[in-house]
């Protein structure tokens, strides 16, 4: 099976699992002022950066669609946002060496900011009602901080899995 297809098939349920967890009462225990971390976003960023824009945007599209079903948004809202994030991070595949702390934090910081800006922008165009009408409010900053703190740990955890690492997958496939 093509390595990209294998990655997409495995990644989509994993990120969906995180999305279900995020919507459950389990995450209420770890929320800060009602704000939950977006773990599925961090995982998408890691996979997209390590595996290219084709895998990244495909995974982003389907997981965005799942999030649309789970949330109040119209279908297509989050699939558009996550496809774009997967595509953008995939374009920069391999451009930087991922160190344990700084790169994960920076990637997550830009990814969260971009996600928030796109949510606000799309809601204005398509008249989708958001919880927060102000872009840079407390929810915004808390989510950014929370995501950045968790990013290093999640990146380190995902590096352990060969399927998400292109070099290791190349060795495994005998290329």
């Amino acid at each position: 099976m093509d390595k990209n297809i294998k990655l997409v098939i495995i990644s989509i349920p994993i990120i969906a699992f995180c999305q279900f967890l995020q919507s459950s009462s389990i995450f209420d225990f770890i929320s800060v002022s009602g704000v939950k971390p977006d773990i599925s976003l961090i995982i998408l960023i890691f996979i997209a950066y390590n595996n290219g824009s084709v895998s990244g945007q495909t995974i982003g599209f389907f997981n965005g669609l799942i999030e649309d079903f789970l949330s109040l948004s119209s279908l297509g809202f989050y699939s558009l946002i996550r496809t774009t994030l997967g595509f953008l991070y995939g374009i920069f595949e391999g451009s930087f060496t991922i160190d344990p702390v700084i790169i994960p934090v920076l990637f997550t910081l830009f990814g969260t900011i971009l996600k928030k800006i796109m949510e606000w922008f799309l809601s204005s165009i398509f008249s989708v009602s958001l919880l927060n009408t102000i872009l840079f409010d407390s929810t915004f900053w808390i989510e950014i901080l929370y995501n950045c703190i968790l990013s290093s740990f999640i990146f380190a955890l995902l590096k352990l899995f060969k399927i998400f690492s292109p070099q290791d997958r190349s060795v495994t496939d005998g290329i």
Partner: protein
Amino acid sequence: MQKIKRFLTKHKSISLYIFFIFVSILLIIITSNAPFTEVKGAGIDIFSPAQEFFSNMGTWFSETINSIGKLQQTKLELEKTRAKLLEYERISENIIRIKQENLQLKELLDFSRQINFKYIPAEVIAKQPGNTFSIFKLNKGSNDGVRKDMAVVAQNEGLTGLVGKIIDVGSNYCTVIPLYNSSCYVAARLEISRNDGLVNGLGENNDNIIMTNVNKDAIEEIQSGDKIITSGLGELFPKNIYIGYVESIISEAYNSSLEIYVKPVIDFAKLEYVLIIDTE
């Protein structure tokens, strides 16, 4: 055809991106229209069982940990409840007398309309996965008689308080938009002064809501702590359901009406069980 194929293969990433964006925009445009919400309703039925599973897992986990502390708390609550019961027995005698008087007065005024409510109990199984929207998912759907735009209430400290309304229905699950969502509007009234207004969510996670369009002259009649109830106007929400308490009153010179900040009766952070009102 060959040229197109070569172009698509050469620019695979961009082509795929354009395709996904086109599909996403099409979906947003299509699913914004009412007839196509059936698709979302089907999705609710597909994904909600998994959400219910994770919710049950979380509930078991928290209940196991909290059970020890709850035992002591339960003992104290039992004593308080016993004392309240004695008081309520005394009050109930008065209520029976007042009810009879009320019936007689209604007959005199020729009130013929009967309001019969049926309550559908439901459990909160999931909330919004992100921080951008605010919704609850309940474990009842069209198979249980749930319909769109039904009001949802819950009990808190002996009061029945408004939670929100149903906005999406699947076969066995439904989605509720809560009171504090900025797109939720409720026709309301102050219980004591009887002034009308409109309650709207502030769109923030701290659950505060605001009542607007209240006559400025009413400022003398309103006090902090006054209860706010649904007025029943517009017939979307049944009347006399508690919404919250007056927290503060703002009267600006440039505004033709008062702005009242309201503390909801319901503690949304602890919401587990609700009742869906069937007015038909």
